[in-house]
């Protein structure tokens, strides 16, 4: 298949946004009849590349050809008409309409302006039969599972004579059986000569389905590889961008004594927590004063673990014991009552209230914990806020400025302060250092160490292995939505071993049992 001419080429693509260079001189090619995986960590430029390709963004530089002809799409609709269809991560169909209508709406066969429903259903059945799907085309789409909906979206996409099919993380909300169904259809379409661009975070899936892999990192092209010639470990290296031997040289910080900490009753012990479609059941214990690192690639289920522990999502089953007593963490309010605090990864959407002042943002959680009928006296507020503005070195040191005017790092500190004020016993930090400058990063790392020395338990989630290693007593490794291992952070543990665990899941068996 490599001998044929590429159906699609992108050469020298560059794209900048104000202050960010999203893509820099990226080349990409796609051959008919192949599944080509586009890999990279978040922020590597995968979505930008797809958006440039489908005309959502203009290119600053570079050229795109389709069948050898230069093209420049003005938007997804035009791209679709030219044969480049995209199926997004979220199913973008209307669940209230029938399966058939979802495939054909906007281009229904009509007679004198009236939709010919019989013809719509007949064509829908024919199209689905081609995908080997046996559905009731007049049933509402919402009565089918997400996986089927995803496949209906593909049916809609390929009906427009698609030659290039872009699947942007189609598997992120499917379970294993559903993924298998999807892959069967992908293989079939590939065999029909359609070129498929496949974006996913799941390494196993890449090796199962992809013929070729292109890796992006920080907006640049790392390389294009045949799947058979790129071992899984090398792929992880290329995505993260560090050779393993370099990582091995990282200076080892003081390892804390895990055994001593784990003697007492665990502060929080969950067993068989899980949520179908989000994270496989896992068990985890966290002791007072312990920092548990949660490592894994993005999309591996780290945030999902945090959300379950905070009660933001409800677990499907399992038990939780707090201070050795059976308890439950079903809602955030319950979790807060038990002294759990959660700094979410998505601070803009889920944490910071941009229009409120630094002071108002900081006292939010404490006020919520006290109940709204017992306002915190203003003097007490000022004391607390002053203390944390100083302790965390928040700039500007004016508690009355709206948080929107602060830099990302300072916003993160305000969010941290919000939870610290409530004096939580377990603090969950989801990517607290992402997207902030190195100075603020160090301060936050230092703070985590201080807090745990003071007896607070911390669940520390980060994509940066060095950081996890530096801070944690114990590292839980996530991979493809499973907690595949829990490794004590002793002399034998280094980034290399974590990375191998991420890449191969070699500890899956012991972790699962």
């Amino acid at each position: 298949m490599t001998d044929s001419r590429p159906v699609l080429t992108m050469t020298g693509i560059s794209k900048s946004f104000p202050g960010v260079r999203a893509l820099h001189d990226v080349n990409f090619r796609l051959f008919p009849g192949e599944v080509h995986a586009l890999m990279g960590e978040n922020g590597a430029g995968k979505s930008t590349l797809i958006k440039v390709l489908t005309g959502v963004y203009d290119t600053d530089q570079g050229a795109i050809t389709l069948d050898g002809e230069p093209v420049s799409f003005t938007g997804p609709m035009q791209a679709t008409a030219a044969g480049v269809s995209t199926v997004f991560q979220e199913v973008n169909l209307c669940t209230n309409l029938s399966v058939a209508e979802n495939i054909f709406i906007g281009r229904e066969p009509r007679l004198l302006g009236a939709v010919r429903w019989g013809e719509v259903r007949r064509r829908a059945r024919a199209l689905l039969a081609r995908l080997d799907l046996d559905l009731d085309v007049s049933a509402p789409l919402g009565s089918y599972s997400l996986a089927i909906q995803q496949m209906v979206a593909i049916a809609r996409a390929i009906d427009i004579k698609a030659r290039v099919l872009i699947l942007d993380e189609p598997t992120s909300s499917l379970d294993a059986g559903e993924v298998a169904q999807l892959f069967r259809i992908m293989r079939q379409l590939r065999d029909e000569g359609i070129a498929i661009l496949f974006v996913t975070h799941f390494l196993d899936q890449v090796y199962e389905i992809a013929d070729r892999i292109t890796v992006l990192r920080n907006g640049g092209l790392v390389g294009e590889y045949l799947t058979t010639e790129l071992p899984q470990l090398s792929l992880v290296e290329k995505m993260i961008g560090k050779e393993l031997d370099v990582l091995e040289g990282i200076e080892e910080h003081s390892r804390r004594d895990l055994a001593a900490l784990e003697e007492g009753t665990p502060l929080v012990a969950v067993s068989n927590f899980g949520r179908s479609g989000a994270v496989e059941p896992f068990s985890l214990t966290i002791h007072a004063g312990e920092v548990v690192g949660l490592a894994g690639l993005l999309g591996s289920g780290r945030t999902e673990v945090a959300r379950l522990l905070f009660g933001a999502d409800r677990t499907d089953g399992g038990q939780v014991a707090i201070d050795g007593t059976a308890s439950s963490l079903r809602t955030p309010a319950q979790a807060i009552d038990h002294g759990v605090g959660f700094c979410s990864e998505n601070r803009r959407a889920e944490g910071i209230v941009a229009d409120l002042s630094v002071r108002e943002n900081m006292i939010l959680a404490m006020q919520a914990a006290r109940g709204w009928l017992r306002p915190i006296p203003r003097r007490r507020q000022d004391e607390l806020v002053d203390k944390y503005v100083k302790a965390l070195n928040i700039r500007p040191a004016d508690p009355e400025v709206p948080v929107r005017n602060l830099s990302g790092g300072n916003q993160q500190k305000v969010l941290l302060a919000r939870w610290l004020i409530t004096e939580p016993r377990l603090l969950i930090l989801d990517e607290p250092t992402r997207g902030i400058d190195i100075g603020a990063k160090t301060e936050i790392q230092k703070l985590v160490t201080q807090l745990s020395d003071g007896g607070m338990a911390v669940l520390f989630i980060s994509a940066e292995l060095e950081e996890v290693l530096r801070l944690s007593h114990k590292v839980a490794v996530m991979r493809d939505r499973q907690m595949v291992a829990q490794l004590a952070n002793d002399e034998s543990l280094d980034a290399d071993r974590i990375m191998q665990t991420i890449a191969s899941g070699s500890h899956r068996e012991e972790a699962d049992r």
Partner: protein
Amino acid sequence: MTTGTLTAGRTRFRLPRKQIPVLATLALLLVMYAIGVSQYTAFSNVQVIFNVFIDNGFLLVVAVGMTFVILTGGIDLSVGSVVAMTAMVSAALLQDGMPAALVLVIALLIGPTLGLLMGCVIHFFEIQPFIVTLAGMFFARGMCTFISGASIPITDGFWTSMSQERIGNPRGNFVSISVLIAFVVVVIAAYTLAYTRLGRNVYAIGGNPQSALLMGLPVGRTRIAVYTISGLCSAIGGILLSFYTLSGAPLIGVGMELDVIAAVVIGGTVLTGGAGYVFGTVLGVLVLGVIQTLITFDGSLNSWWTKIVIGGLLFAFILLQRLIGIRYK
């Protein structure tokens, strides 16, 4: 992987789910009618049903327009005021001696124009329909009193003949012209929703506007269209009301928008959009009408009981919709 496993993901009771609210309304209507027939002998006269249509023809037309709006997930609070304004304008122009045909044309243009304007504001400025149509409601109501502070009688020959014309059978049962007009509106609306791209786009937008946009559907155009349609229906409703009352009164139809919304929701259209039928709306209007008739027949009950019953029903129906809708999430 066999095709057999692919169908396994189906839910069990899909068949009537979309129709459950409409069927519930139909059942309710039949029960109410049965109660009426069993309690009052005069109730079994077919003319009772015809009278419900005669008294509520204008409401039905307005409710049909509202159905379009609610199906997209929007709301139109201006309908009652637009009905009143249309009747007022007609009465005032006829009083000035303008020919009936010209008055009809003008009166039928006012509502859709206002609807078009509101639709444009809602779409282009991305403002909540609630607040935009609330503004439209105040504007139209203000225009009514601006035209005249007092009721204006209509003596025009065409209007009076439309008002008094009875279409009936030899046994003496009859309906008014308004009822026929209302039925024509209902049939056109039902066809539009079921068989035209405009209608299907209305459902798609109500289901998921974001998806509709990504599927390349003309979301903006459709959204503006539904408010224009609602305006047109209100205008027709206003004309029918002026046939019925032979006057234009500045304070007529106050709160009618809420009756209309109630009728549409009781008729099974989901307030969040995407599901419902014009036929359901017909049933919803009938339910309202039959409740009124029952209370009139009883004689001892205060007319406010209508409101109390409607309130209870509305509550029951939104709960029903919620219970069915929960499965969609």
